[in-house]
Structures are given as structure tokens and as C-alpha cells.
């Protein structure tokens, strides 16, 4: 067995008064893909930051090639070839893609940076990732998935010997994930060790050699992946078996009233002439490849983007010019961009939770007691795990931020919930809770629009599925027709409207 390239002995970590890691032992061999799994808040990201030198450990040691290395900032570890792709984007938004990819180790010619060389190399790396962003675009203008690809490009453009990826696929779709896996296999063949964190256990099964499970900051097990089924991994993570991940579908009766109808909605440059209807008790899935324009369609509908078309609520046209109008119409929106549009990372949980629904918390003065009560309730309802209720939201684990975001949206008690990638970065156990939550929500005579890039999620939950391609609705599937191959056919243009009608050819 090869010598471990990176190892940790008894690593522990304390934030303020709370301990989040307890004596973790870990080792990583060259050429292996080592998955790290655990519930939200288990301490995975924290542990990875310690391995990569971004955070100092409170106790224990980290060794590289058998030698103990003190933590002296990320630069030192990176020089040893240890590169971390953060769960939360770690890009300077005002800089261009190319500037970000080479930040801190620019190529130079004489005293000047060699822009053409960097642009070319950046282009090459992005091409390798099948990513089509322009190296000269500002990161601020990119979609979340593109940002993630840029993060990956940034990492692999370095001299990497250990690549730590913290939920790289949370914001990627199937195709992009496939590209990433191809890349991982290539790196693996070159002897690079990969640490792979994901809540998508099928991916873990597919790509990794060994898996380490953390729970509540403690090491539970490290085992070869071949020895474990997905269920077994889930059980190790959660401490109990996960059954019936998806609730049994309960489609609304065919004569259920239409709560929301959209007719001929267009968003310039993104969506053209989209129409659909949502009935009481229904979960309506939206499927499509990245860039299909699902997010833009919803944002157009909600008044967050300029759009044309008609929106009918309970059969009556309602003008929705701003999110406030949408809120008044009983529509709640869960954004896919948690960090950029969803949460104020420097503020507390309470302030974030009630921000959207603030008019409901008191009249002239905000009723803080009511807010606190709402937070206490949300923490229970959505299983938000924060070890300290007063930390800024930015210090919550990624999954718990996502749960808080869902809770925030629910504060307005919407009748219609538009959930864009609701389970992004959520562990299996909690996913199940969210699925059941959405199911129950619809069962109570409300309705859900579910946008998801995870095919099983759409198939497992939705009563009908609208498929979009390049800004155009290409089909609506129902009942038994909701299955992967059929969705893909519509999403890729094999079925449905001819592609020259599309707003954009993807």
C-alpha cells in the first residue's frame, strides 16, 4: 500500500466556545479518490479547510508525505500541491475569470503579467472542462454553475497533488458532473489524490475508492466504497436507516382548480412564450439542461426580471411587477443562488429568517420576541443545526444555510412555493425531510413548482414535469411518461419543438 500523501492525526477544532471536530484521524493515498460524507454541519468543510491550511487546527497534527507541517496560511500548503475547492465560492467577483484562475500565481513576462499566455491557458483549462465562459467575463456576471466550473478550473490549473473538492457538484448538472468525473479519473491516473465531499451518494459510489464518514464532528468509519451500499453509507451518516426517501405521490384530482397560470411569458434574451398551469395540490417539476432558462422564467414571472406575458392567479390576471407583488399574491420564491441572492452572510440567523416577511413581525416596531419564536420554530421545523444561535450566517455549514433559506421563504406562508434547486448541498437525511415537507405542503391544498437539476428528485416528486430547452417549453410530461429518458429527449431537442424556434441554441 502506498505511503499516505496527506494524513491527519487527532485533529480537533474549536470555534469560540463550541467544538466542531473531535480527534479526527484521516489518511489519503496518492491516486485514490477518497469521499468524505456526513450530515450537514458534521464538520466536513471545517476539516477540509484544516487539511488545506485555511484554518489552524485546535489540536492534532497534519502531515504531508509523512512530515508534520505547521499551518502557515494556504499559500504554504498550496506550494506542496494541496488545493482546495471551497464549498462557498472563493472568487473575487469584480475580477475576470482569467484573473481569478491565476490569482496569486500569475504568469509573467518580465515585470508584466503575460495576459495572452494566461488567457490561452485559461481557455485551455476551461475547454478541458467543456465550460464555455469567456475568460474575460467578470465573475459577477456568471451563473452559479459557471462560477463552480471556474473554481474547478482554478484548482486544476495549479500543480496539484492533492485536490480537495467540497461539494463541487452541488450546483452542477448531470453533463457538467460527467465532465468533472472524467477529469477526476484523469487526475487519478496521474497519481493525484482526490478528496471528494458530496451529499449525492450515487456519485460517491461511482467515483470514490474509499469513504470516510463524519457525524457530529467525530470520525465514524473509513471503509472501501465497494463494501458499502448507498443505504449503508446513509445509515452510517445519519445513524439510522433512511427509508422511503420520496413520499408516495398524491397527484391532485384532475378537476383541482388552477392556482396559477402563465400565458406567453417572455424574458428578453432568455425565455420565449412560455405557458403552463399549476393546480391546487400539485408539484410541478421543471426540467432542462443548464441554461434552459428555468430560473429566468421564474424570475420573470416574479417580477425580478423584466418580462412580458400574462400571469393569472386563481383565474384572475394579476400584475406582478416586483417580488412584493408576488409575495402579496401568495407566491414564495427560493432562489438557487444562496450566497449571492439568498442570505446576508454577515448578519445573524434571526435577521435573515425574517427579512422577507418582516411586515409580519410587528407593526411600527419589530417584535423581536416573535422573531425569536419564529427562529426557534424554524430551527426545529427545518432541522437547522447551528451550534451557536448568534453566529453570523456565513459561519453556518452550507447545508444549514440552505435550510435557513428555505425557512426564510416559508415565513411568508405562501400558497405557491417556487423552489429553485431546494436541496442544493443538503444531506440525505434532511433531503428526505424536505421532500416530505414539499409533499405535505402540496397536500395541504397548496402547490409547488420544483426546479431541479437532479433528475431523480423531479421524477420522485413531481406530478407533472415541464421540460424546457433554450428558453422554450418543449413539452409537459405526466404520469408514467415522467422518466429519465423521456425528459432527456425533450431537454436535448430530440423531441418537442424544433430547435430553430429556440431563443438561443444551447
Amino acid at each position: 500500500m502506498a505511503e499516505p500523501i496527506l494524513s491527519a492525526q487527532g485533529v480537533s477544532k474549536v470555534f469560540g466556545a463550541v467544538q466542531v471536530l473531535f480527534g479526527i484521524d484521516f489518511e489519503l493515498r496518492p491516486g485514490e479518490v477518497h469521499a468524505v460524507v456526513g450530515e450537514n454541519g458534521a464538520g466536513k468543510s471545517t476539516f477540509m479547510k484544516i487539511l488545506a491550511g485555511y484554518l489552524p487546527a485546535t489540536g492534532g497534527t497534519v502531515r504531508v508525505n509523512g512530515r508534520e507541517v505547521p499551518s502557515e496560511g494556504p499559500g504554504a500548503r498550496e506550494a506542496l500541491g494541496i488545493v482546495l475547492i471551497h464549498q462557498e465560492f472563493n472568487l473575487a467577483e469584480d475580477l475576470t475569470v482569467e484573473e481569478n484562475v491565476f490569482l496569486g500565481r500569475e504568469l509573467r513576462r518580465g515585470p508584466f503579467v503575460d495576459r495572452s499566455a494566461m488567457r490561452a491557458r485559461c481557455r485551455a483549462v476551461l475547454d478541458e472542462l467543456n465550460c464555455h465562459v469567456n475568460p474575460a467575463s467578470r465573475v459577477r456576471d456568471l451563473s452559479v454553475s459557471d462560477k463552480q466550473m471556474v473554481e474547478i478550473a482554478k484548482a486544476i490549473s495549479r500543480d496539484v497533488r492533492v485536490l480537495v473538492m467540497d461539494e463541487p457538484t452541488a450546483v452542477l448538472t448531470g453533463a457538467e458532473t460527467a465532465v468533472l468525473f472524467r477529469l477526476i479519473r484523469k487526475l487519478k491516473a496521474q497519481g493525484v489524490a482526490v478528496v471528494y465531499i458530496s451529499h449525492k451518494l450515487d456519485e460517491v459510489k461511482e467515483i470514490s475508492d474509499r469513504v470516510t464518514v463524519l457525524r457530529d464532528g467525530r470520525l465514524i468509519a473509513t471503509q472501501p466504497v465497494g463494501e458499502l451500499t448507498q443505504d449503508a453509507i446513509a445509515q452510517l451518516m445519519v445513524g439510522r436507516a433512511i427509508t422511503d426517501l420520496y413520499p408516495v405521490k398524491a397527484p391532485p384530482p384532475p378537476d383541482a382548480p388552477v392556482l396559477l397560470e402563465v400565458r406567453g411569458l417572455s424574458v428578453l434574451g432568455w425565455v420565449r412564450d412560455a405557458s403552463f398551469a399549476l393546480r391546487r395540490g400539485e408539484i410541478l417539476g421543471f426540467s432542462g439542461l443548464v441554461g434552459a432558462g428555468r430560473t429566468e422564467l421564474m424570475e420573470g414571472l416574479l417580477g425580478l426580471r423584466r418580462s412580458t406575458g400574462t400571469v393569472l392567479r386563481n383565474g384572475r390576471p394579476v400584475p406582478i411587477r416586483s417580488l412584493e407583488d408576488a409575495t402579496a399574491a401568495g407566491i414564495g420564491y427560493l432562489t438557487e443562488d444562496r450566497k449571492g441572492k439568498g442570505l446576508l452572510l454577515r448578519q445573524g440567523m434571526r435577521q435573515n429568517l425574517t427579512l422577507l416577511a418582516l411586515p409580519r413581525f410587528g407593526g411600527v416596531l419589530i417584535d423581536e420576541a416573535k422573531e425569536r419564536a419564529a427562529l426557534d420554530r424554524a430551527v426545529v421545523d427545518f432541522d437547522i443545526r447551528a451550534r451557536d444561535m448568534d453566529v453570523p450566517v456565513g459561519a453556518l455549514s452550507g447545508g444549514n444555510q440552505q435550510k435557513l433559506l428555505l425557512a426564510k421563504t416559508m415565513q411568508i406562508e405562501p400558497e405557491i412555493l417556487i423552489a429553485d434547486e431546494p436541496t442544493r448541498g443538503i444531506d440525505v437525511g434532511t433531503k428526505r425531510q424536505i421532500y416530505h415537507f414539499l409533499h405535505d405542503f402540496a397536500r395541504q391544498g397548496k402547490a409547488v413548482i420544483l426546479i431541479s437539476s437532479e433528475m431523480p428528485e423531479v421524477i420522485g416528486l413531481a406530478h407533472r414535469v415541464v421540460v424546457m430547452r433554450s428558453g422554450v417549453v418543449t413539452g409537459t410530461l405526466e404520469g408514467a411518461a415522467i422518466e429519465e429518458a423521456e425528459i432527456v429527449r425533450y431537454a436535448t431537442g430530440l423531441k418537442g419543438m424544433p430547435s430553430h424556434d429556440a431563443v438561443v441554441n444551447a
Partner: protein
Amino acid sequence: MTQSSTPESSQPGVGRRALPSFDLKLYGPFLALAALVVLGTLANPVFLSPGNIANVLTRTAFTGIIAIGATFVITAGAIDLSVGSLAALAAGVSIMTMNALSPELGTGVAVVVAGVLVAVLLSVAAGTFNGLLVTKGRIEAFIVTLGTMGIFRSLVTYLADGGTLSLASPIRTTYRPVYYGGLFGISYPIIAFAAVALVGALILYRTRFGRYCAAIGSNEEVARYSSIRVDRIKTLAFALQGLCVGIAVMIYVPRLGSASATTGLLWELEAIAAVIIGGTMLKGGYGRIWGTVVGAVMLALIDNILNLTGAVSVYLNGAIQGTIIIVAVLLQRSGAARR
């Protein structure tokens, strides 16, 4: 803290509140203020006399009240450079109005009320104008208010014909007590300052508007996606700044009964400095009203201490002032950074 502490929050919903640790970011300004008071007392025992303290607090009131408005603007991620000029303009117009109305309204309370109303309305209108230019015109607040700073000051110079606008003597007599008088030995400007600070704190910490300001200053996009009307809130913040200027003018005019091109010169710098010294972040998203109050008082105290001691050389006053500001903030911040 140690390995032996066990995780407690595995039970969802309980959550643990941090120890109420001594937060230097919050208390730093107060400590620095205390240090300054000690320094002042050492410099000259007169410093602590009630008369002196009352003087200093009373004269802090103008910039202090303006700084409270600035706290909102800065918390919302903007800046207002026009406040000093606006104060001069509002004072000038208010004085002209009172002088012009006195033939009709006499020289009693009625005319003073009219003057105050004009000052307040004008200030609020000007603040709203700034806000609309920033939000609807999509111009940086810095540029907008740099421009209106020039405009307002120029207008008052014009109105005063380059000289001084003076309140007619009989009206002054009526109005004078608003600055020089008081209740229970506390001067009205101090009372006004305290009231504005109190209301300001309530608004910033306890109302939706205050929360929205902080949200916009933190991340405008998130604010927009939280169905906050960003433009309206920002405009309101500028209007509130205008209101504060109006109130400041209301208690400024009775002091000397005049306004000129020099009135309120550099008050904007003083107000912004008070806000930042108080711990509000210049980049927005985090505002502290009580910090601002302390910041304003600190700035006034430094001046006062310099006047109470015969400094080495008058020429060096500015240097001592600058050094005290830096050291005071250094003390309060270095502690905070130590965590």
C-alpha cells in the same frame, strides 16, 4: 474549549447562545470616550465642571444630530457629502423666511415656527433629491452629493450676497432660548440630540426600515430578492438624513442668528468621522447609533481639551487632534481585533 466538551446541539432546535463575551467592537467607542475624559480631566480640572460639559454637549448637538442621519445613509451603503452645505442653505432660507414673514406674523412664536418648518421641509426635500438622483439616476452617492454640496453652498452664498444673513433682532429674542434655554438644567440642544439619538436607535434597530438599510448595505441583491424596495429605502435614508439636517438647523439658527457661506463648513467630514469612529462600517451593512453619538462627542471633546490646555503651539493643534483620533480608534479597535 477542550476535548472533553461534548456536542450539545445534536438535538435540533435547542441551539446554544454564545457566552455574552465582552464585545470590544460594541464597547470600544465607549472605552475610548472614557479615556478621553480622563485625559481631559488631567489636562485641566475645569474640564469636568458641569458648565464645560454642558457647553461641549450642547455644541456637539448639530454635528451629532447630522451624524445620526449619516449613520443611516452609510449603513445603507451610501454617503452624503452635502450635509454641511445643506445646513447652511437651510439656515439661510429659514432666516430669510422669518425676516420676510415678520411683518405679517409678528416676531413671536408663530414666525419662528414658520422658519423651523421651512428649514425642515427644505432639508427633507433636498435629502430626497439626493436620494432620487442616487437611485433613479444610478449615480454614485459620492458624486451626487459632491455636486449638491457645491450647489447648496453656492445658493446660500448667492442668497446672502456673499455676506451674512442675519435674523432680525426681535425674532432672535423669541428664538434664542431654543439654543440657550433648557429644561431641568439640560439645554434644549442636548435634549434634542438625545431624542434624535433615541429615535434613531429605535428606527435603526427596531424597525423594518432600519433592518432594510442594513440589508441593502450588506448586499443589495439579497435585499432585492427579499422583496425590499431598494430604491425607496435608499431614498428614504437620504430623506432621513435631510430631516436630521433640518433639526440640526433648527437649533443652530438661534445660537448666532445668522448664516453665511461658512456655516456648516466641513460638517460632512465631521459627521462621517463621528459615524466611522463609532464603529459603523464605511462599506455599509452595519450601523451603530450609540457609537455615532460617542464618536461625535469624542470629536467635540478633543477640540475642547485642546482649548482648555495651552498646547505647545497653536500651530500643532491639528496634529494633536489627528493623533488623538488615531490613537483612540487604535485602542478601541486593537482590542477588538485581538479576539
